């Protein structure tokens, strides 16, 4: 079977390539149903990108939802202990409200989840897969990486108030140093207490540039263990001359779910992150499972913007025939042109709004090309 490249979208091509990439790394496919009990989502609303979920009542009265997220289902179905590590990949549609569109959308996502391994090598492998996933779409990518454990240690130095910590974390995510300062002033916390946090937020760049400074700060706030985990995970990248892998302490996430590494992937030409992931041991704990987990998702839908503009022509040849013409002869004439690799549309009249490279009229015994457009 031959697949015409022109008919495949960037998202479709990428999905196939990603599946091959994940399989190559020993991950196994994970298939799931479109529906899941609503209860799962209502209990973990904060984990979802949007808290609107499409629900409906099953024939037996149970409230079901069209799944808005894949990770929750995979995590929920994890059955192993520490010795039963799982490495899976998926390529699924999810249904969520898109804030900018103000309505529900069907969104295609592919990604991996590695559950049950707590070591830096397993986390590093997921990072590596994230980078390779991005690279496979475009060479002009950036993978931004942070560690929530380090940020949390810095936040705890500032305050024990969770609400202030959350507000500070949000400002950190916006690289909003003046916002952090005004939050400190409003809450009467002296700036010295936030010295580490204020130095962390602007840190961004290649590991070579950032890690020395980060190591110092991590030592000051007692986050050496977290720093060492980050450093060990980063060691999977042997050489990155283009500086695509970056440590950026402004990458944050919801600490009810995420705890350790957290990362986002960007492609030049697309305005928002196309890949998002992290370690979500806290989600596992909330699901009553004692296991480490790390994974990411690639938002395939957003890749559409990278597709080239549609071709100027809707087809190579328009072959017009009359009602009295012999269908067999017309078909054979069209097929002869198709055999030369051209796309041919046959019609009684010129279809409105469509454009063709050449227009021919079938006349007994041959094609009469219009305006001297013949081959």
């Amino acid at each position: 079977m031959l697949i015409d490249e022109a008919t495949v979208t960037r998202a479709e091509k990428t999905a196939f390539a990603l599946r091959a990439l994940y399989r190559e790394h020993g991950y196994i496919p994970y298939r799931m149903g479109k529906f899941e009990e609503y209860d799962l989502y209502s209990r973990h609303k904060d984990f979802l990108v949007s808290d609107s979920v499409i629900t409906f009542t099953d024939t037996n009265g149970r409230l079901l939802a069209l799944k808005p997220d894949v990770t929750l289902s995979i995590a929920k179905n994890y059955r192993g202990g520490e010795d039963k590590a799982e490495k899976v990949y998926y390529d699924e549609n999810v249904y969520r409200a898109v804030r900018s569109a103000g309505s529900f959308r069907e969104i295609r996502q592919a990604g991996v989840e590695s559950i049950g391994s707590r070591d830096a090598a397993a986390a590093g492998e997921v990072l590596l897969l994230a980078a390779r996933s991005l690279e496979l779409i475009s060479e002009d990518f950036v993978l931004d990486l942070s560690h929530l454990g380090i940020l949390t240690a810095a936040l705890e130095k500032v305050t024990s108030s969770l609400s202030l910590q959350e507000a500070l974390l949000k400002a950190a995510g916006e690289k909003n140093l003046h916002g952090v300062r005004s939050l400190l002033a409003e809450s009467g916390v002296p700036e010295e207490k936030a010295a580490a946090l204020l130095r962390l937020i602007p840190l961004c760049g290649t590991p070579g540039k950032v890690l020395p400074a980060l190591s110092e700060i991590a030592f000051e706030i007692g986050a050496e263990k977290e720093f060492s985990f980050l450093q060990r995970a980063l060691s999977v990248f042997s050489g990155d001359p283009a500086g695509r892998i970056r440590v950026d302490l402004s990458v944050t996430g919801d600490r009810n779910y995420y705890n350790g590494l957290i990362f986002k992937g960007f492609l030049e030409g697309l305005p928002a992150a196309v890949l998002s992931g992290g370690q979500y041991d806290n989600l596992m704990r909330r699901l009553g499972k004692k296991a480490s987990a790390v994974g990411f998702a690639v938002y395939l839908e957003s890749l559409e913007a990278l597709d080239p503009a549609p071709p100027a022509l809707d087809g190579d040849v328009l072959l017009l025939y009359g009602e009295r013409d012999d269908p067999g002869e017309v078909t054979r004439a069209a097929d002869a042109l198709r055999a030369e690799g051209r796309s041919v549309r046959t019609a009684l009249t010129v279809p409105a709004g469509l454009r063709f490279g050449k227009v021919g009229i079938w006349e007994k015994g041959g094609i009469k090309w219009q305006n001297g457009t013949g081959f």
Partner: protein
Amino acid sequence: MAKRDRFLNVALPKGRLGEKVYAMFASAGFPCPALLENSRKLIFENPGAGIRYFWVKPSDVAIYVERGAADVGVAGKDILLEYEPEIYELLDLDVGHCRMAVAAPKGFRDDTRRPLRVATKFRHITERYYASLGREIDIIHLNGSIEIAPILGLSDVIVDIVETGTTLRENDLEVVETIVPISARLIANRSSFKFKTEEMEKLQKGLAAALRQL
């Protein structure tokens, strides 16, 4: 969002604030003299400085930046609080000062036995503010002339931007509570920041230096 576009695309808010902000950008090393010529053009560029400016409606700046049509922009904190766009907020530009406030007819007393009727353009900010107080409200979303709502009995109070307070005074209203001070912020698209890091850092540093000189 054009690929390989080495211009830094800047969305400026149309109007007096935008002109003031442009002067800051120019002194930060990103001039574009054509911008000041009186014309109806909306897009101006200076290839030498690698910069392209465009004028947009102030409340739309954040949309241009969030969606990557502009790499950076200047938006009021009111808009950022209302729409919570996913952007970086890099700098407080210390211009366009005003405040988001609750205003009511002089002598107003809150009748806590019933929900407070609040007229506003800023639904999200209003909801969050009253939720933080635990006060039940009935939001009346209006698009303009908010001050008239309490006069006509449409609402009890309003939540709106107050600059000098003249409009309020002329309509016999007064500020009851300040919700948050507002000023103009330099915002950046999160993806652009990764790929035009140098240019953005140059701009951010230049603007910070220009601010210190003020």
